[in-house]
């Protein structure tokens, strides 16, 4: 293996740090980000067929937001809780990868 080019780094396993090399896979690993309830992300890659809501609109829990077609299946994405649509980052025909931010929400004040 190509050990010459790499440099030993400090690597904490427990309370102790070891001198070692990192593998490519470890370096490219996904860093965990705490998901936000106000971000509607795609759980599967696919194409946006329809968008039912507009920016600024207050939408009730359970109402349809959009249709995401993936693997020949039309998935209806629904509002997780009543909130205002802050921004829509997709349009009809968009092809999106997994985990892409489709819609951002913001809280509405209780009336």
């Amino acid at each position, binding site marked *: 293996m190509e050990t010459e080019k790499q440099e030993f780094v400090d690597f904490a*396993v427990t309370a*102790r740090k070891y001198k070692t090399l990192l*593998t490519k896979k*470890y370096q490219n690993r996904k860093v*965990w980000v705490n998901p936000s309830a106000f971000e509607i992300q795609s759980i599967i890659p696919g194409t946006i067929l329809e968008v039912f809501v507009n920016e600024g609109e207050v939408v009730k829990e359970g109402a349809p937001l959009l249709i995401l077609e993936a693997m020949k299946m039309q998935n209806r994405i629904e509002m997780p809780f009543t909130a205002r649509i802050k921004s829509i980052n997709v349009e009809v025909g968009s092809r999106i990868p997994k985990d892409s931010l489709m819609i951002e929400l913001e809280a509405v004040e209780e009336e």
Partner: protein
Amino acid sequence: MTLKKNILALRQKKAIVEKGGGDKAIEKQAAMGKLTARERILALLDANSFHEYDLFVEHEERNFGMEDKVLAGDGVITGTGTINGAPICIYAQDFTVMGGSLGLKHARKITKIMDHALRMKVPCIGINDSGGARIQEGIGALAGYGEIFYRNTMASGVIPQISVILGPCAGGAVYSPALTDFVFVVENISKMFITGPNVIETVLGEKISQEDLGGARVHAEITGNAHFYALSELECLEQIKELVSLIPHSNQQKAASVEPKAPKSKKNIENIIPADPKQPYDVRDVIYALTDDSKFLEVHELWAANIVIGFGRLNGETVGFVANQPMYLAGVLDCDSSDKAARFIRYCDAFNIPIITLEDMPGYLPGVDQEHAGVIRHGAKMLYAYSEATVPKITVILRKAYGGGYIAMNSRHLGADFMLAWPSAEIAVMGPEGAANIIFRKEIMEAEDEDAMRQQKVQEYIEKFANPFVAASKGYIDAVIEPMETRDMLLHALEVSKNKDDYRPAKKHGIPPF
């Protein structure tokens, strides 16, 4: 006179079919930097040892213009031969014949040679170079794949099955290699994926090259689907010959013994491991210092490099090594390294190969990605594989053996036959810093100088527990040995365990966590 005429006719007929897809297609194959199926077989097997079966098999498809198509050997060459004198069965898909596409008869030639290998108890080698299912044959092609997978599974653990990917191997075709014991790939030539770049782009809009999606390096380093990686076809064929010489040819045999040789490694085994437990070294240097002629055939060299697995010989007999590699990720166990070691342990156990475990590991890799990737079930595979194995199991603890990793790396508690430790071994529930922080938490917090107190307590813990003698006093370690004694001790342990007989409860099969 008639016989003579018939013989001449036979020769002519053979010569035509042996040309596969014909001169033009052969030229194209060469232009891609690839050998032809026939060249590959002849280069791999002993000279003049190849005997072909089913040369004149023809497809029976009558739709989509196939009725007029003549496909030499239906796109696959099958037969028997020898490698270094040992008989094997082999098939090679011929890309020059309709892209090596798999139709029912093509598949039936393969299943026939597989059945033969299983009955004769000889290894089966498959050379894959195929565009995939022959679409014109419809579900006939799917049936063919299924019949191959079924036989791969039946032969698993009975005869060695080796897959060589020397071209495209896409869609369902990849599952036969995945079911076999060892997969060989070659840079720029091998391509394996379930859904190819075209489908991915059409469906998802993600653009990726075949090489980046499922090239040789990707499978050797990232996915772990490939066990051996070579830069050329000829290097790959040499690797196969070496592997075949090291493994038994069925589960009822032992690997061939060869003339014992002393290690020729120039490195003094006492100087390989740094005194500071935080400093790395290449654990393969320890293996080279132990094996006959210092030879070691590493499996999965690039994937999960934090654990090293492979075959070597001790006193002329094949053994399998499983060794933590402090050079990478400090030698931790994680999802991939557990998966890699567990499968290798099961391979060794299935084929009567004793397992030597060299241990120097600080624990499991911490991280959300690891926990969410299922390090619990992957890690459990290793516990399962070691516990289940009935071949001789010998462990040498070189340095760190902490916590769950100590248990996992073939400890006495999982049924190790011989537990040896070097004087540098540290066998403890966790590293001294972590342990002192927990045990002496109160003392440290109440001290005027917390750091000084922590240092003192860590030092106390190191002196008391960071050694092999606590474990030895409980009988968990059989002997604390000097590094120089290791090879002799391993030879002796193998000698003693020659007739090992281990009881296992009767069952249909266990349920390992995969």
